[in-house]
């Protein structure tokens, strides 16, 4: 019979305020195989753990039950404490008498004490049957996949490469940079966005430790933290990027123009073109849906004119396999689809554009070379209306959350507008001005004072075309007056939403997303960059809208977490997983389909099912499904569970 120890924690008043810990400790002491029973005000504190260590040493205990808070709080703490005394950590179990007893029965003190004693007795039953287990060590490969080549993905990739890890960076578009490439200048210092970004991109392109795959997407992923196996689909660019020297003749002679998504509908691209001028990598791609050859087999102009014969009409998508230890998801954001914003006339009135379109106008290499003009007639707008919270902070019809960056980029855009059009008047309809970053409030107030931006506190109910002008029906709640503006141009600060395709990417990665499609972090406060699935890390707007400096911080943070994860070449896995009793298992295979983590395979030679120890999360689905009771969870066998139930029933 094993000698057991019971240690009951007061947890200040949290437990002791309801459960009579002294009498419980006393009763536990009377149980015949309990060699030591004690209580202390804070078991998890240093002196508390000291009591446990001394008791194990003096009484040579072979099993310990700590009655305290939830196992998710301090199970590791107490298992480490018993391990330091040479006892197998898995012989130490937690009896949760706080969340499951004292906190919920604060009004019935004696019944709560009774219940606490029963919980401890049940846990003793469990410990009596527990076996000694060793953590499973799993070898990991020390490379990382970064999904998304925006500023978040680039920062994470660079940090990891500097840290000496192999990085695979995949980007869905044909060039790096994400939305930052569309920006003119960044707030609050009005630095031009592109130069620094391209410097970083070139650094990535040339870095030996980074394997860059643009115009590629992740098709499938298997495995677990430390051992992800994934297949990347490299979409056919129809140009041999090694051969192409970026001379640009093909782009010049391509007869087909189409309205470019990158230019937010304000500019055009050729069927074969770069994503943006002097992009990194500076390689063109043929877009099949616009290229005449793919439509009716005609043209082939680019092929004729290409000096390096780099055009590959027949090129097919390519698949390459990769093994990585951790994955950073940096998929970025999109703007809420404008067409669904009926009341603002977006898509119907040419002079109503969104924030990114105005950024394209303000960019020196944009469609209007930096000049703000009305898309309808090319005139300079003198009445410029900015509307904030378009589809943001609108729980009823659109998105309930705040998109965080619009107040700042709108103020920046209004400032640049006033510099370009001194006699123009910007009106900004807002609800709350949100300039809470470092130096943001000072920038905003200085701009309002010097440039004379008129902030009207109120939402806009409707925007409609009215003989050449764009009528805006808004309100100024500070004077309580309805406000109407016959504007020349309207810029909508539309809501930031996750980029499309994130939902099924998350499904593949078995990462969770919230109802809007933003990836869910493990803990909002303490683990903001880790996903709840081990080995998956989140950076940038994919997790929630944020500005560039917060995105960069979060990206570096993921790099730090991954360097910590992959610094050891072995990863310790919890041994509390399922196992199969070979002589009972009939090989029916039900457990293989049931397993949500694909941790079960059929061993064809012996005709029985086997557990993949690294993949199994110990969820117990297979145990419930097994018709012959052939499998059990380590240290949670059916006998133990039944014995624990008995202590409650009697």
């Amino acid at each position: 019979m094993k000698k057991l120890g019971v240690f009951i924690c007061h947890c200040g008043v949290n437990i002791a305020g309801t459960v009579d810990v002294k009498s419980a400790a006393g009763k536990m002491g009377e149980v015949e195989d309990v060699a030591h029973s004690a209580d202390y005000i804070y078991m998890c504190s240093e002196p508390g753990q000291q009591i446990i260590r001394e008791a194990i040493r003096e009484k040579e205990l072979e099993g310990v039950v700590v009655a305290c808070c939830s196992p998710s709080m301090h199970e590791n703490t107490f298992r480490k404490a018993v391990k330091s005394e040479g006892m197998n950590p898995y012989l130490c179990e937690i009896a949760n008498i706080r969340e499951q007893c004292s906190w919920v029965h604060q009004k019935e003190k004696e019944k709560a004490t009774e219940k606490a004693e029963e919980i401890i007795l049940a846990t003793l039953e469990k410990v009596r049957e527990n076996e000694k287990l060793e953590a499973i060590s799993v070898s990991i490969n020390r490379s990382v996949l970064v999904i998304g080549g925006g500023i978040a993905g680039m920062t994470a990739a660079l940090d990891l490469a500097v840290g000496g890890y192999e990085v695979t960076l995949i980007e869905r578009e044909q060039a790096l940079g994400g939305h930052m490439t569309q920006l003119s200048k960044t707030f609050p210092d009005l630095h031009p966005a592109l130069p620094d970004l391209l410097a970083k991109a070139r650094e990535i392109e040339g870095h030996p430790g980074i394997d860059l795959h643009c115009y590629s997407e992740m098709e499938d992923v298997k495995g677990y933290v430390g051992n992800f196996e994934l297949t990347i689909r490299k979409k056919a660019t129809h140009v041999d990027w090694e051969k192409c020297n970026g001379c640009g003749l093909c782009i010049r002679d391509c007869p087909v123009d189409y309205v470019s998504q990158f230019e937010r509908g304000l500019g055009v691209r050729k069927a074969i073109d770069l994503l943006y001028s002097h992009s990194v990598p500076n390689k063109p791609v043929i877009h099949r849906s616009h290229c005449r050859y793919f439509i009716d087999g005609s043209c082939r102009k680019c092929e004729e004119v290409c000096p390096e014969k780099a055009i590959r009409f027949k090129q097919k998508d390519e698949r390459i396999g990769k093994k990585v230890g951790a994955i950073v998801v940096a998929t970025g954001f999109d703007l809420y689809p404008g067409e669904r914003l009926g009341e603002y006339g977006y898509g119907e009135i040419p002079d109503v554009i969104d924030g990114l379109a105005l950024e394209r106008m303000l960019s020196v290499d944009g469609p209007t070379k930096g000049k703000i003009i009305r898309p309808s007639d090319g005139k300079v707008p003198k009445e410029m209306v900015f509307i904030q919270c378009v589809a943001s902070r609108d729980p009823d019809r659109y998105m309930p959350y705040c998109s965080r960056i619009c107040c700042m980029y709108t103020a920046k855009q209004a400032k640049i507008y006033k510099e370009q059009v001194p006699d123009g008047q910007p009106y900004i309809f807002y609800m709350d001005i949100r300039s809470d970053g470092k130096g943001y409030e000072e920038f905003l107030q200085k701009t309002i004072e010097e440039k004379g931006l008129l902030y009207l506190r109120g939402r806009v109910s409707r925007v409609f075309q009215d003989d050449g002008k764009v009528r805006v029906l808004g309100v100024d709640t500070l004077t309580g007056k309805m406000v109407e503006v016959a504007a020349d141009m309207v810029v909508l600060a539309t809501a930031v939403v996750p980029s499309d395709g994130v939902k099924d990417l998350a499904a593949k990665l078995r990462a969770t997303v919230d109802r809007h499609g933003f990836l869910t972090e493990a803990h909002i406060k303490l683990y903001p960059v880790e996903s709840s699935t081990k080995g998956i890390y989140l950076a940038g707007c994919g997790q929630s809208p944020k500005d560039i400096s917060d995105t960069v911080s979060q990206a570096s943070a993921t790099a730090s977490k991954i360097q910590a994860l992959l610094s050891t070449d072995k990863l310790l896995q919890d041994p509390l997983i399922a196992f199969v009793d070979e002589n009972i298992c009939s090989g029916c295979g039900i457990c293989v389909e049931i397993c949500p983590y694909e941790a079960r395979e059929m061993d064809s030679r012996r005709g029985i099912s086997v557990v993949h120890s690294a993949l199994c999360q110990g969820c117990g689905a297979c145990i419930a499904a097994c018709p012959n009771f052939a499998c059990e969870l380590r240290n949670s066998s059916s006998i133990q569970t039944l014995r624990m139930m008995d202590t409650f029933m009697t």
Partner: protein
Amino acid sequence: MKIELTRHKVHNEFAKKVELISGQNLFACYQCGNCTAGCPVAFAMEVGPHEVIRYTLLGLEEEAVGVNTFWLCASCLQCTSRCPKGIDIARVMDALRSVVLRKKDRKDHIQIPKFPEGFLERLPQIAFVSGFRKFLS
């Protein structure tokens, strides 16, 4: 109840004149209402100082000069001392008075003969003198 704004109306001549006389930048105003909150005579005003500043900025001259706010202002400077943006609201009130008085088209000054009997004898001269350029109904 409804106004139409154009760039000529916003920060128009009237607003610029008030800014010139008072030497203050009305765009700096947060509309936080600290001045109205602290004003000892705000209870008797049709609109608070922050709102008359708002009307001025929006170029609503008739509304701005139509209210009794800056006639009631006793320039006790409580607002100026507490404005987080450092706007001298008392000067803006005086500027609004000056704009109206300098136009000379208002005739509803208080007439001295209309004072009740013996009122002037009891009144200290200082009350009378400091009231100059301020007495309009």
